[in-house]
């Protein structure tokens, strides 16, 4: 029971982080029709910026604030320099161009920060645990991630559903040409959407930084899982991404936590300990393959244009 609550919370926390990454991907795809493989690089840059800025300022909060702004600016710069030229191109062109961006950012990080990973220490007020139920303790920082992510989800919901910019974003997602024809500054809207997506990825990266090592390639693992999320949810759908992110987060965490014991019931101990890590890594891909075979456009397909 104790383990179940703890793993459940871990799953929710992973799911919310995945949503932050996936939201940007799905927005950029839904509105600009661009497959952005470099999205994971911004996740990585967010974490590196946070580790460096925290070391400079000596304050965790100032560090993540600076990192967030820096990631946002970086995203806008990349959109203006590179991404903008890829709009309206074939998806294959996006794959190749943004694949190039991944190589660039990975190497840039190696050049600036060196090949060894960084760590982002937590301030003492976050580095403890809280008694959430009688006798059940849970790390404060993970709770902070959950609350922060939920707050961002709520803000994103208000932004997209109840503001003028959100209205334009939704309009852009359902018909790009039409809102351009209606006189909306579509270039600016694209830059804003891209910046927003990048900032969300950066936020996810910097929140994850104290838990994992900040290292080159950290973005790619998340990127692929985020792609699994948006494909399951239906590409272009934010609601779908949210449901799928929580689903994937819970399945992945549950697989890693409980699969070894489950396998031990049917297999020998040795076979189980060999098979379990591989099988739990595969679980989410298996889930995605099943969803796509049954629903080739994901669970919540975005409205057809």
């Amino acid at each position, binding site marked *: 029971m104790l383990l179940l609550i703890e793993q459940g919370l871990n799953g929710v926390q992973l799911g919310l982080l995945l949503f932050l990454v996936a939201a940007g991907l799905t927005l950029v795809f839904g509105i600009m029709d661009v497959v952005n493989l470099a999205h994971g690089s911004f996740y990585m840059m967010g974490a590196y910026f946070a580790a460096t800025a925290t070391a400079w300022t000596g304050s965790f909060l100032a560090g993540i604030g600076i990192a967030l702004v820096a990631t946002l600016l970086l995203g806008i710069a990349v959109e203006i320099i590179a991404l903008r*030229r*890829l709009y309206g191109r074939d998806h294959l062109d996006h794959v190749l*161009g943004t694949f190039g961006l*991944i190589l660039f950012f990975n190497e840039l990080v190696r050049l600036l920060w060196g090949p060894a990973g960084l760590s982002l220490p937590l301030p003492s007020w976050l580095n403890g645990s809280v008694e959430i139920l009688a006798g059940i303790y849970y790390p404060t920082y993970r709770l902070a991630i959950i609350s922060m992510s939920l707050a961002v989800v709520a803000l994103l919901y208000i932004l997209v559903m109840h503001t003028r910019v959100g209205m334009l974003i939704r309009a852009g997602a359902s018909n790009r040409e039409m809102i351009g024809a209606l006189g909306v500054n579509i270039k600016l809207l694209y830059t804003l959407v891209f910046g927003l997506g990048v900032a969300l990825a950066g936020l996810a990266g910097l929140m994850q930084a104290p838990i994992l090592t900040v290292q080159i390639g950290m973005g790619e693992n998340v990127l692929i899982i985020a792609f699994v999320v948006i494909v399951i949810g239906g*590409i272009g759908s934010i609601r779908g991404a949210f449901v799928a992110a929580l689903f994937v987060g819970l399945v992945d965490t549950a697989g890693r936590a409980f699969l070894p014991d489950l396998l031990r019931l049917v297999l020998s101990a040795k076979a189980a300990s060999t098979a379990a890590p591989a*099988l739990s890594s595969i679980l989410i891909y298996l889930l995605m*393959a099943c969803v796509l075979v049954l629903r080739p*456009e994901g669970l919540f397909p975005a409205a057809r244009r």
Partner: protein
Amino acid sequence: MKQLANARLVAVVLVGAALALQPLIALATGNGFLLVISTRIVIMAIAAVSLNLILGYGGMVSFGHAAYLGIGGYAVGILAQSGIYSGFVQWPVAILASAAFALVIGILSLRTRGVYFIMITLAFAQMIYYVATGLDDYGGDDGLTIYRRSQFGGLIDLSNKAVFYYLCLALLAATVFVIWRLVNSRFGLLIQGARSNDRRMQALGFPTYRYRVVAFVIAGTICGLAGALLANHTDFISPAAMHWMRSGDLIVMVILGGIRSLFGPVFGAIALLVLEEVLSEITEYWQIILGPLFLLVVLYARRGIDGMLGGEPHG
């Protein structure tokens, strides 16, 4: 235009001659590394040519093609570890295993389109990658050293580097020939028709799904053979051979060389691997140059090297 078409012919002849002379050049200059990198180029060219069949002609953007390199390689590696060294067993197993995987992946993936297809092929490749990392009996993460190359009973000695190189080159020539015949056959026209307008092809009564699956299996099978060659070449196979970045490399080779052109992927494989060697000589941080270069190719040279030589994309 005629002049440019000739430029392309000259390029093909020159590249062909250069590839054919590699072992002699290596012998003359005493540079053994030259033959190692040339062999790698030829093997990757086979994989890239096979990818071009589905990616270029068929319009199926598979982001998991490196998986077959791994499957072919592991077939050789696992059999060698079990004491079966005969190439007459290893290679057919490598080919059949890749074909079987490609068939299952193709049947499931080709139900989807566009970005979903890109992502589902990536997901399947990731699954196979993680299975390989879980093969603790066969090296797991660290990979598997192959102590003896495939044996062909005295017929051909793969441990002789020049012989192995010429075998790879002959297989590349055979692959290009097969793809050429396929693309210009009824089957090839059909999958190209399905690329440009699948609905119309279906309305004309062609079961395009079946043809696309067959094309997907052919490409996977050829790439599996390249995997068997790669494992023999490096005497080693590890999950890294099918990391998703390797699938990205194969896509880069096809586009860099010229999508939907017969020799384009060969040019692309040569260009990418030579570029990697040259850039890494210049600076340790060579990918900082290579990455933006891909972006420039996408933006300003979409038809790749073959396009610069005046080739028109086929179909």
